[in-house]
């Protein structure tokens, strides 16, 4: 099975250096891109049907096409390496193991949208990634893959590594842009979208790390080969992960559209003596699916049809000896703490959600609390808040209230957590 994103990554944890990167096809994508030119690159990526791996699954080529390419103004490219969605650990793997692939992906993206400055917005906690990227940026500059007149062309690019001082909202692309400008990472209203008015008001493309790492593969192997990597109409492989109480938690690169069951097999199935009750398919802000949904294909459209979102593609599993109310409480505590406080429903609503869940979990809750939670999920739904944070925050809550209803009610009836 082809694993173009992870094939180079060494098992000893040492990052791939420039020489080994080049020896295994590295920077061939950039060379091809320079030969094709900006419009050709955009066409190739659109043909490849690459969809964003940061959570929303937006078509990457289409997103790039909104940039006013020929306006002659300064444009920017940004790698979103904030990865703080609970349950997500895939971008870390790529940056620690194969930092040049991100640099090459950013360079090709910059060429496509005619940007001359790029940023890698990295969470500071990823200190190993920072070291690997610093070194790789130095190597790439020294070898002429970055800087002025790259490989003798008229394309120039400088990439800055920005270490964030930490906050989940920095991962939301407009919050990220505010943070890069030295402001609080509260979101901006859209439209205008960053593709038109982003960093310092200039056209800007923000893409997820995994998205960008796919770009050199498209340019090197061609759009058709890229599409053939996938089991669905969308192109490429996907980094899937499993965490929770399974035998062998981890991250694996598999064809896009691999079933949840096959991914669980990679994880060795549930840990000794446990069975599966449900899972969130792609990080904290995705709806729970029941344990009977293992045959769902883990691609954007199939997971949506099943009633959730692919999100980041990293599953967190709920076993039959872990309290679903406790799990949801852990998720909502994260969201309540990370709310940026800009709009009232989210700032006030999420702490209320946490208080209701705490009451239920400790045994002092009432049936009315369950209804309050349902009401709050509706009030934080898409369109009711300033950004997508709050709707994401209530996805696991609203689905848990349906799937694990009797567990919530048992807490009230017993006046205690039945799992303790």
């Amino acid at each position, binding site marked *: 099975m082809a694993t173009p994103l992870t094939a180079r990554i060494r098992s000893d944890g040492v990052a791939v250096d420039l020489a080994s990167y080049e020896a295994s096809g590295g920077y061939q994508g950039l060379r091809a891109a320079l030969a094709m030119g900006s419009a050709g690159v955009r066409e190739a990526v659109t043909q490849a049907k690459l969809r964003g791996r940061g959570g929303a699954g937006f078509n990457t080529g289409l997103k790039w096409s909104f940039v006013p390419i020929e306006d002659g103004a300064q444009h920017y490219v940004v790698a979103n390496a904030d990865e703080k969605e609970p349950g997500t650990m895939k971008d870390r793997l790529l940056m620690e193991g194969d930092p040049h692939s991100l640099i090459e992906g950013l360079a090709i993206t910059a060429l496509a949208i005619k940007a001359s400055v790029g940023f890698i917005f990295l969470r500071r906690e990823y200190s190993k990634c920072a070291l690997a990227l610093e070194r790789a940026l130095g190597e790439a500059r020294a070898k002429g893959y970055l800087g002025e007149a790259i490989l003798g062309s008229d394309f120039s690019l400088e990439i800055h590594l920005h270490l964030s001082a*930490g906050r989940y909202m920095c991962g939301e692309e407009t919050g990220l842009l505010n943070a890069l400008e030295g402001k609080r990472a509260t979101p901006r209203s859209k439209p205008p979208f960053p593709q038109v008015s982003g960093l310092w008001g200039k056209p800007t493309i923000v893409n997820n790390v995994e998205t960008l790492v796919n770009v050199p593969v498209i340019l090197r192997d061609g759009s058709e080969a890229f599409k053939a990597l996938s089991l669905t109409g969308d192109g490429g492989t996907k980094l899937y992960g499993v*965490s929770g109480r399974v035998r062998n*938690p981890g991250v694996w690169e598999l064809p896009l559209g691999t079933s949840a069951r096959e991914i669980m097999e990679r994880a060795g199935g549930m840990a000794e003596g446990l069975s599966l009750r449900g899972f969130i398919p792609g990080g904290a802000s995705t709806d729970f699916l029941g344990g009977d949904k293992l045959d769902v294909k883990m691609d954007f459209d199939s997971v949506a049809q099943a009633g959730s979102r692919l999100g980041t593609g990293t599953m967190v599993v709920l076993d039959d000896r872990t309290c679903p109310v406790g799990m949801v409480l852990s998720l909502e*505590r994260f969201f309540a703490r990370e709310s940026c406080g800009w709009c009232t429903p989210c700032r006030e609503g999420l702490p209320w959600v946490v208080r209701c869940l705490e009451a239920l979990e400790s045994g002092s809750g009432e049936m009315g609390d369950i209804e309050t939670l349902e009401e709050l999920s509706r009030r934080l739904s898409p369109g009711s808040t300033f950004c997508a944070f709050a709707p994401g925050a209530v996805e696991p809550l609203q689905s848990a209230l349906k799937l694990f209803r009797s567990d919530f009610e048992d807490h009230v009836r017993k006046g205690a957590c039945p799992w303790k």
Partner: protein
Amino acid sequence: MLSASERERIERAIAVAGDRRSAVSEVLMVVQEARGWVSDQSLADVAEALAMSADEVEGVATFFELVFRRSVGKHVILVCDSVSCWITGYEALLGQLRSRLGIGPGETTADGMFTILPAGCLGACDKAPAMMVDEELFVGVGSEELDRILKWVRDGRHGDAPHR
């Protein structure tokens, strides 16, 4: 007053960011690295160095989780309390930290050695439970590992880190 070496590092941070204001979070981290935390006086100094108002700098400083506006211990322990770690043993890990250090999240040991802070997902969910001590990540932390880690840090990080 900022030291000469802080000023030098601040100018470098501004050069890298390409603009004074954009460097603000990095500059706050420079000061914090030198002094352990960001006091009101340091905040005012940063504001002056970046030609920003103290309120603007405060807005940024209080937004970011890794900027400390109160004094912390010599070593900061970030314990992940997010979902995968919660499922696989966060509460046990926190309990062990409490019994070893006598403090909980948000508190500092009497000898000023350790502060425990709660942290959102550290991106090591497949190796949970996870925690960081200063810049170092530790995964799959059970009771014995915790003892080795604390001893290693107390002894000044001599020898290889007790990673698993």
